[in-house]
């Protein structure tokens, strides 16, 4: 916070005119590429020129200023305290002399090797990542993200370079088990589901979550699938499921970048710590111990009226500080779900998806993206094809997979099982190695190198299908 709010903290002289910005938060917001959510919040640049000038001004800001001037007060917000208290000065040392503009040059330079980028992670705060992303072009966001390697594991290895994983999302409007199983089978036979098999329950309570967790566990065990399951219910529900003995692999929670946002979601950092401990105590991972699955998305803080006057992208990146505290297996930015009042069209959704992926990766998160849109946004399948391709090039950790792109429970469109195979073929991206081996063993892939599917129904699935549809 600017200690003296009456005089603007930043000035930029352009010809005969002086542009002023009240404080760091104002400068960050004005420098943000245009999007509807910042206009709704009343924090966006008023003209294109003001935005460009703000970007110039921001590029001169030293990275160290973000440590001195938290954008949300330290006393009021546990996420600010998390960011400041856990900042690693030694990791920060190699970049501590840089400005935001200098940081962009450094990130793009050959000095920033994958090893170097890994070593500075703990020294980069969300605000530094957000600031530099605001002055980066889409190709910059792609190129630097591609250099950030983040590897996690539970029953398989997620995030290896040259790999792309998929969440199989077999949602059903009434949680009907036959309907869910039908989508699961379809997804598995289209080689999807290595990131997680994750259900958004239609009925959101402990009893239903337990039922779905058990069902997925039985399928995973029966077919010996090297993957993990998750029911996307509230973190406190999952804690209760674990207490009641449910076979929980991953704990889910939607998270935001301010304490007030997370209050509105009904949890705090202590809740997440308790949930992580509970899941770890089950010791169900075989390859690794990353037991958390988080979802985020620009606009959630404003939607909860908890944005503290910040732009939505800066709020979003602050949520990544929450995520990285708990060593997640997966983090998913659900970029186009929130609607056009936050991201209006395909262009804004694309930009936000690339920003989120870059910032997440820079901070060391296994960042995936729900490449998606709603029917009241100015977007279509072609916009999703573009973003999927860009993210595939950028080394995105995982995407969603759903039958025919149509989520019949949540009423939005995301990437299909077919889309994932498109990305594999177009960009040569393989599934997690353990899952890839399973696909070969089960004869789902006829040729793993060329991503060719078996044209016959694999024998292991024939009896089940015969039982169900034999009489039809």
């Amino acid at each position: 916070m600017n200690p003296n709010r009456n005089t603007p903290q930043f000035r930029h002289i352009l010809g005969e005119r002086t542009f002023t910005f009240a404080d760091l938060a104002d400068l960050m917001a004005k420098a943000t590429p245009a999007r509807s959510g910042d206009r709704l919040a009343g924090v966006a640049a008023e003209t294109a020129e003001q935005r460009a000038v703000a970007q110039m001004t921001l590029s001169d800001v030293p990275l160290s200023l973000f440590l001195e001037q938290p954008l949300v007060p330290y006393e009021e917000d546990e996420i600010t305290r998390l960011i400041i208290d856990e900042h690693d000065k030694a990791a920060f040392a190699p970049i501590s002399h840089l400005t935001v503009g200098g940081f962009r040059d450094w990130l793009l330079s050959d000095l920033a090797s994958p090893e170097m980028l890994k070593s500075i992670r703990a020294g980069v705060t969300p605000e530094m990542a957000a600031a530099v992303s605001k002055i980066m072009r889409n190709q910059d966001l792609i190129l630097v993200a591609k250099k950030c390697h983040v590897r996690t594991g539970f029953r398989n290895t997620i995030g290896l370079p040259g790999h792309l994983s998929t969440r199989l999302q077999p949602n059903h409007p009434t949680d009907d088990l036959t309907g869910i199983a039908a989508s699961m089978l379809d997804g598995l036979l289209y080689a999807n589901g290595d990131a997680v098999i994750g259900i958004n329950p239609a009925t959101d309570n402990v009893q239903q979550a337990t039922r779905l967790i058990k069902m997925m566990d039985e399928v995973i065990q029966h077919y010996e699938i090297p993957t993990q399951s998750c029911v996307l219910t509230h973190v406190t529900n999952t804690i209760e499921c674990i207490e009641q003995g449910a076979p929980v692999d991953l704990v889910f929670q939607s998270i935001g970048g301010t304490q007030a946002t997370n209050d509105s979601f009904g949890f705090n950092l202590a809740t997440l710590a308790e949930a992580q401990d509970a899941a770890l105590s089950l010791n169900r991972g075989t390859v690794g111990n990353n037991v958390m699955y988080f979802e985020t998305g620009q606009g959630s803080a404003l939607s909860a009226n908890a944005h503290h006057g910040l732009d939505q992208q800066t709020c979003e990146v602050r949520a990544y500080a929450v995520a990285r505290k708990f060593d997640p297996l997966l983090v998913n930015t659900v970029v186009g779900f929130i609607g056009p009042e936050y991201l209006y069209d395909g262009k804004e959704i694309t930009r936000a998806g690339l920003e989120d992926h870059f910032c997440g990766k820079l901070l060391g998160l296994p960042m995936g993206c729900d490449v998606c849109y709603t029917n009241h946004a100015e977007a279509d399948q072609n916009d999703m094809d573009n973003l999927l391709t860009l993210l595939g090039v950028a080394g995105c950790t995982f995407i969603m997979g759903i039958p025919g792109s149509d989520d019949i429970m949540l009423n939005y469109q995301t990437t299909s099982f077919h889309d994932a195979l498109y990305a594999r073929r177009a960009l040569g991206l393989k599934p997690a190695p353990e899952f890839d081996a399973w696909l070969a063993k089960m004869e789902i892939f006829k040729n793993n190198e060329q991503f060719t599917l078996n044209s016959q129904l694999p024998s292991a699935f024939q009896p089940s299908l015969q039982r169900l549809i034999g009489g039809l």
Partner: protein
Amino acid sequence: MTQDKPSQQDAVTENSWQKLTAFTDARVGLGRSGVSTPTKHLLAFQLAHAQAIDAVHTQLDAQQLAQQMMAQDWAPNCAPLFLHSRATDRATYLQRPDFGRRLDQASAGSLDQHTQNSKAEYDLVIAVVDGLSSLAVEQNTMPFLAALFDYLSEENPLNQQAWSVAPICFVEQGRVAIGDDICERLNAKCVLVLIGERPGLSSPDSLGLYLTWGGKVGYTDAYRNCISNIRPAGLVYPEAARKAFYLLNEARTLKLSGVKLKDRSDDDLLEHETQTTENFLIS
């Protein structure tokens, strides 16, 4: 076609599990051209998306809908009111939900005038709002209202106390909360908002219903009760009307709505929710 040229059947691999569509609306078993969506399914998707977009962007013909209503024998005697939110057009509406929650100046003025002139005490005002699907409103409002007015009729033995109903309000470019603005200006005891819901790919015509007791500008969703997915392929009209009538009576008894008003209209049906995890993949 000669034998050595690949036929269309060869290019498209059908899935033997395509019959699973009998058990779910999900787009399973689509088959594939290489690894891509076959032309037939690609075009079916494009059509569904086109219908959903049209549902969002087609303007509600409020006058025509009102005329249709006035021709029904259940229609209230008083002439309907036509209102507009502060969102001047659809693009503004989509980006500024705050504008869609408030009446524009002319509409607010006409309601105030009505209240001044009529001096009526209304128990209920019904607002028919375009929301995100004019299609949903045009297809479902009349049959739903017919079923609801059956319940509200004085001849209905279940109806212990008459309902004084305000003129039906037809609202363009409105969000749910605009009902509160209307309720407050008409000084009505409660408001029912019928609104087009965000269209899904397989459900572009879904109508939502929101009840607020003593609606006031600034009320949040915590003060509202909702009945969702009213349409022939979802919650059918008689069921939706039964639930709405239940909520109206409960709200009138408790003088509140929202989280403290629980929908127990199905309690006598007592679902026996099973704990089985049985499904064909593991049976």
